């Protein structure tokens, strides 16, 4: 029926937008914190730059996980549900 299909599509679109929108706040704040502390450490002791940079990238890779969960759910809602 037309109305139920339209409601499902509208709900999927709304859900995808809210999911990705709210889900993008947390990882960005967390990674910004991590990079800020890494930069403080690099400014204080420039010879440990390489070590700090490597660990910062690893930490950012792990902190991004929940943002990626939100992206996968949003893509699932937009492109898989008819």
């Amino acid at each position, binding site marked *: 029926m037309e109305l139920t299909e339209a409601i499902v599509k509208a709900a999927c679109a709304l859900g995808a937008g809210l999911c990705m929108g709210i889900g993008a706040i947390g990882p960005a704040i967390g990674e910004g914190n991590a990079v800020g502390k890494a930069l403080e450490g690099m400014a204080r002791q420039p010879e440990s730059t390489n070590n700090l940079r490597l660990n910062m*990238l690893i930490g950012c*890779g*792990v902190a*991004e*996980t929940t943002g*990626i*969960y939100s*992206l*996968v759910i949003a*893509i699932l809602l937009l492109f898989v549900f008819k």
Partner: protein
Amino acid sequence: MTEINITGPGIYFEIPIFGGIRITQTVVSSLVVMVLLCTAGVLLGRNLKKRPGRMQVVTEKGVGMITSLVCDAMGAHNRHWTPYITALFLSSLLGSLIGMTGILRSTTADLSTTATWAVMTSVICWYQSIKNIGLGPWLKGYTEPIKVMTPMNIVSEFAQPVSLAFRHFGNVAGGGVITTMVYWALSGASAALLRLAGASWIGVVVTLGLAAVLFLVPRKGKKPGAFRKLLGILLAALAFFALLQMLGMLENVPFLQVGIPAVLSLYFDCFSGLIQAFVFSLLSMIYISNACPAPEEKTEPNS
């Protein structure tokens, strides 16, 4: 505007045994990655000499780097895990990068691949734990520190491989989806620009004139810089394709799709693939080293 099609890996054909084994794009890419890695391994490990040639020096340096990384992260007693970690890292890296060729699909853009590797790491951790401390103490470990925490401990134990697999898959597949959407947006933008410029002869002439002005007219006495030249080339291409569209030859050529997605691909394919492969291997190392503690020093009785 053309419709975009974002789907999973396409199925090529199905072998009708055991209820149907599907040969998908991922299987084909994995076979190509396997053949490449095995050939590289065999060729680099042949004819090793005491006075090494160039390739052998580079290979030895690479192997030394990965062995020292494993020993640093896991402890010197866990040195025998180096082949497993190297295989994981290289398959993940090559599997992500092979999507850049355009004809093959990245192996890690499929949840099956990353879930398999995560399950392998988890089974190794559980087996090592049971071997080192025994089945009873391992099961009792889930009821610590209080008995009420048992469901939460079990859930967090299962969340480990799930998060490992999803992180890798989500980054690579999400990058692919975003790149597809960028291609779609650029094709829509070029169609709109072509409609604007190719409405009549005046549009084509004006665009060509703007391109010439940007290219040739010096501003403040200096020759035009790289940015203005790039803009001039873009406008000249727009004028050329608008002319073709007006004469009825080629319609809606997506000329904006040249170059801009390449810059994005530097982040999504190269950087993200490398970082995710490294994070996957490093987390596997940490989980396995938690399950394989250092052996106690056996003290000799001194009498």
